[in-house]
């Protein structure tokens, strides 16, 4: 019998430290190609129609304006302002969203009491409240932080509640039979178990936080990328408007990918973290 047993080795692609699968590789090729194609179409459109630069500037002009922005300390001051408002608002959204979410998921009467209000505030178009926040909290950074926090709060809250409620009963039994304290149950079971859900909430939340900060800047004060965009609009500098838009989008991407990276660091055991 032993004669027929060949010494077998694992296929070499399984041995590589970091395996790159074909599906994992695909977006790294398609994304640049598609972006390049879009820019080409844009360029050709502008050249052939001779459309006014006030309406649609050529991609090359926008690119030059964006590079100029990167060189301007003033533009960076606006950028930092927006980043700061976004992150501080996001921070409070996490603290309140996760904290309240865990309590709501655990305490029946609290959930029943708060649920109508949570639904109500979900349904109210929150962006419509921005002028009110400006009236209450002024033209400074506070109103932007609050708008960012209010927008980011809901997805974080609802995902946290879902996460804590989805905890495996068998896992709870383990902690109960080990006589774990409430704090230990929170730290060693509820938090790690709900973390994949919370991170999904954070992914949605960070995008809403930056939207909140920018919308807040549209309406109040003269600092931040939102305010910068409005100023460029009022000056009919469409090319610079586009540059600011690109700047904002890149900021959004950076935040979103930061959360993705956080996912790989915090929950390497979860399938959502393996690419």
């Amino acid at each position, binding site marked *: 019998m032993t004669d027929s047993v060949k010494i077998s080795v694992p296929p070499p692609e399984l041995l590589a430290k970091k395996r790159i699968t074909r599906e994992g590789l695909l977006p790294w090729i398609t994304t640049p190609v598609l972006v390049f194609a879009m820019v080409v179409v844009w360029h050709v459109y502008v050249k052939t129609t001779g459309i006014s630069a006030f309406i649609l500037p050529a991609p090359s002009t926008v690119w030059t304006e964006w590079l100029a922005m990167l060189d301007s300390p003033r533009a960076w001051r606006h950028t930092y302002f927006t980043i700061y408002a976004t992150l501080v608002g996001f921070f409070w959204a996490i603290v309140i969203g996760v904290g309240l979410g865990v309590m709501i998921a655990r305490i029946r009467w609290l959930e029943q009491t708060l649920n109508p209000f949570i639904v109500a505030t979900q349904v109210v178009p929150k962006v419509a409240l921005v002028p009110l926040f400006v009236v209450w909290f002024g033209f400074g950074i506070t109103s932007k932080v609050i708008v960012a926090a209010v927008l980011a709060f809901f997805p974080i809250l609802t995902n946290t509640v879902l996460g804590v409620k989805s905890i495996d009963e068998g*896992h709870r039994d383990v902690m109960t039979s080990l006589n774990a304290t409430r704090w230990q149950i929170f730290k060693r079971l509820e938090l790690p*178990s709900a973390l994949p859900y919370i991170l999904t909430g954070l992914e949605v939340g960070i995008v809403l936080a930056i939207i909140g900060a920018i919308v807040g800047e549209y309406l109040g004060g003269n600092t931040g990328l939102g305010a910068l965009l409005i100023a460029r609009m009022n000056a009919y500098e469409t090319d610079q408007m586009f540059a600011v838009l690109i700047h904002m989008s890149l900021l959004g991407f950076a935040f979103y990918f930061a959360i993705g990276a956080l996912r790989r660091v915090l929950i390497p055991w979860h399938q959502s973290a393996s690419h």
Partner: protein
Amino acid sequence: MSSAAATSTDPHPAIGLKAIEKWYGTRDTPVHALAPTDLAVPEGQFLVLLGPSGCGKTTLLRMIGGLIEPTSGELSIEGKNLWRGGDRQSEALSELGMVFQEANLFPWLTIEQNIALPLELKGVDKDKRLARARELCKLVGIAGFEKRWPKELSGGMRQRAAIARALSYDPHILLMDEPFGALDAMTRDAMNLELQRIWMETKKTVVLVTHSIGEAVFLADRIVLLSPRPGRIDSIIDVPFPRARGTEVQTSAEFQAIVRRLRVRLAEIS
């Protein structure tokens, strides 16, 4: 086959039940899951709870494990009351280790971290508890998998890890609810041999719930047969085979006779 009188003369049994009863409240009529039951499990005994589905085996085991409170009666672990005024007593609980039908390992912890979890909750420092986890991996036969995630192990290996976790803080009593119920027959036989070896090495008192007559007779010093509606002790059977039992014991006429007797009785009470 002895009568249903289950209390032994042992004054300090590892587990003592006096008139333990359980009613479940449901939306309509309450369910009488367990009629008042007396039972004493002497130290070091391997006791098996056997009975048809719904006869209250899980209920009884979870009451002993402190996961659900008895409706009435007195439950003592090594002479210490488990429940006092609706609160579980931690001195009694720390003598109990539980293994469930599902391994219930935490997917965010590696195997060794899972096994070390009870010690972590008790505040044992990291080096000490991980050393203990590695030692236990050897005992249950999963050495080499300490740093893996639970999802990277087979069902049988996960159940071994769950047993190691229950043994980590060296409780005197091991409670197991169909620990191998989710495994195939071949793995199950192997696990039963392993469990017997672990039990003989660690000298624990074991209460194991099972559906399998063969498993019960192979493993048990004593089998408690439960009958349903309401759950109660039907009879108690002592299993005389010497240890360590090998697979060959299962083919002996005496083994087959006990199996047959249990099968007939189970058919009568189901």
